[in-house]
């Protein structure tokens, strides 16, 4: 089997699986939570983990989770469509049409991931800015949690990081780019 076909098939398979895994994770630590960092996981099903405890804490600074996250509902069908596109790209010929199809697949993939990252960052901005102004603790200024890495929020440090699904998607994208660059049969 041609290398590009293997790479594209692998990318398609990973995307199809990753759609159902948690995409992003948050780890929250504070002095009074020793050895018990609070964890939040974002998957197509919504936000999971220590939701009750985090919501209990959020009320003090007027922060709340978005009640409705339509983009999460769209993600699985979008990802399955992308996987199908990559699979078709795998079996498309070595000619110009096939190459264009593969690059189109890669393009859609990259745009999708960038758009997702932008959406997450937008949601994070909302979390830190669209707040209840009558919240009890006034000491915490508006904030924007980073997409990657630590952000200090009050007594908490919030670590954001891609979870298995997110990492797998980036890996699949790399495979697809590598596959699209292969020109000849090997």
């Amino acid at each position: 089997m041609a290398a590009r076909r293997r790479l594209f098939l692998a990318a398609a398979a990973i995307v199809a699986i990753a759609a159902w895994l948690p995409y992003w994770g948050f780890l929250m630590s504070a002095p009074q939570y020793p050895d018990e960092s609070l964890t939040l996981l974002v998957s197509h099903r919504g936000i999971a983990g220590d939701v009750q405890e985090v919501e209990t804490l959020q009320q003090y600074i007027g922060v709340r989770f978005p009640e409705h996250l339509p983009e999460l509902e769209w993600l699985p069908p979008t990802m399955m469509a992308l996987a199908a596109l990559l699979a078709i790209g795998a079996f498309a010929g070595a000619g110009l049409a096939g190459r264009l199809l593969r690059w189109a697949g890669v393009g859609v993939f990259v745009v999708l991931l960038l758009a997702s990252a932008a959406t997450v960052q937008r949601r994070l901005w909302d979390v830190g800015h669209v707040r209840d102004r009558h919240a009890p603790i006034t000491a915490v200024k508006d904030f924007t949690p980073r997409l990657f890495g630590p952000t200090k929020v009050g007594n908490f440090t919030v670590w954001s990081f891609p979870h298995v699904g997110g990492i797998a998607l980036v890996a699949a994208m790399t495979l697809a780019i590598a596959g699209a660059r292969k020109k000849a049969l090997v």
Partner: protein
Amino acid sequence: MTRIVTLIVLSILATAALMQTMGCGETGSAQVRAAQEVYVPPGEHDRYYAFLSGGQSGSVFVVGIPSGRLIREIPVFEPRAAYGYAVHPNDPRRRELESTGGAWGDTHHPAPSETNGVYDGRYLWINDLANGRLARVRLDVFETDRILKIPNLQGAHGIAVVSPNTKYIGVNGEFEQPTDGLATNPAPYTSVVAFVDPESMQVKFEVRVNGNIDIADSSKDGRYFFATVYNLEQGKDMGGMIQFDRDALAAIDIAAAEKAVAEGKGVVRNGVPILDPENVPGVLTLIPVPKNPHGVNVTPDGRYAIASGKLSPTVTIVDVKTLKIVAEPEVGLGPLHTTFDDRGNAFTSLFLDSQVVKWNIDKAVAGTSDYIVDRINVHYNIGHLQAAGGETMKPHGDFLLALNKLSKDQYLPVGPDMPEAQELIDISGEKMRMLAAFPTPPEPHDAVFMAASLLKSKVKQVFDLGADSVKEGGESVVRTGPDAVTVNMTMIRSAYTPETIEVREGDHVTFRMTNVETIRDMTHGFALPDHGLNVSLPPGATKEITIETPKPGVYWFYCTNFCSALHLEMRGRLVVQPKDGPVKITDWRAGQNVAGLQVPGVPSTEKSNGR
């Protein structure tokens, strides 16, 4: 001549000064070493939990060893407002205490559950000498879960778990009772040893023993239950109790007793079959030991039972297989209790000498003269002593706790009654070394050590929400009768739901409350002024209590356990409306209690909120 004398005097003074300095240096370095051994830096954990009976506090103290820090008090037989334990007269535990002897107790001997001859970290039993009770403490939550009033028994003194797998908890009845329970009986009074099932907490059978049954232990194979017995004379006063030269170490053959009970040889009284050894030979063996003995302790290898002489300066070493005395060595004045290391040594407390004496068991049995290894002074009048794991088949051989009856000059004076004193001794070397001392409220009698590594992982962080818990969203105030209201309440930082409860004068209000927090240590209190109510709910816990509302008014309930930045704001109201008449108490500032209200004279905080 004058010069020589001056020289001599100067050299003596110089030598004395030098010795003084060197001596201080030695003491100083020993103290520094001891301090390092007991120092547990903030945030780090002790190596052992020590469970100390609370004596007349009716509780159990949990102390970290080696630091001596008091980690917890577990209330058992006495109400503790701080833990919301058995405070209100209608609290189910308070009623249980009142109905079984009173809301106070005298705890003496903590006995942990065992598996294969070592502690398994499940339960701890504790006696109430005063009211003839036995309580079980759950070690996963450090709370009392069962209290048993033992029938046919007064003065529940020595208790011991039957090794190696906690078949029973044996409880010694110290105070004799009329044989049939009636004071008109002319026959001599007797006492019983009660054998309690560890799971059901029911007395399975009792064995009658003449005299006062004192301290207990079991053989390591579970064949015998040992108990020291004094006052075989059956005297009614002190003079009458010390007439005989010898009293006894009682050995109850557990299998023989079980067989006799199964054959129906027990006389059932108050639901419990009592065996009379006179009618059932083989159940009870009395081994003569010097009069009025006190402690009995079985060696870790299970070979010997050692009875301490108290009035006699000896310990009596009994072969557990043959029940024969093999030696009776002198150890010092007032021997009360014995504990063990893992190297064949015994440590006996000497009440009168105010010492712990270390002696070698094999040498004492062999009769060689050098069986005494070391002595160390304790302060003062030591009662029990306990080495880490000393009651198990695997002693740790590192620390020993001396539980002293008097402290006299050891602490800052606090009036005529001085604190109870414990001293921690290093027994890892040939010579014992005093490490540290710490006081407690009155009055620990006995203690057991449990390795932190055994227990830490078993301790729950939150209670599991049971079927009886109130769920978030399921809160309600329901009228269940003409004068009965049930409040289903949840609490989580920093609010009660519902936070306003309106009832009528004379209602019986049942609060069913659940702390729905899911993280450890987030305990909430519920204190209701003027109604005698103070409850404490650790995370996940549910409690139910019914109160009466005799007087109209507005009563603020509030959180007594500091929980959050809005702890002070965590409260609510019980509004008791007058039973009759048209006047109703109106809601306080109804409708105005909304977020963002501009309170006159107070600047708005709107601007400072991150803008």
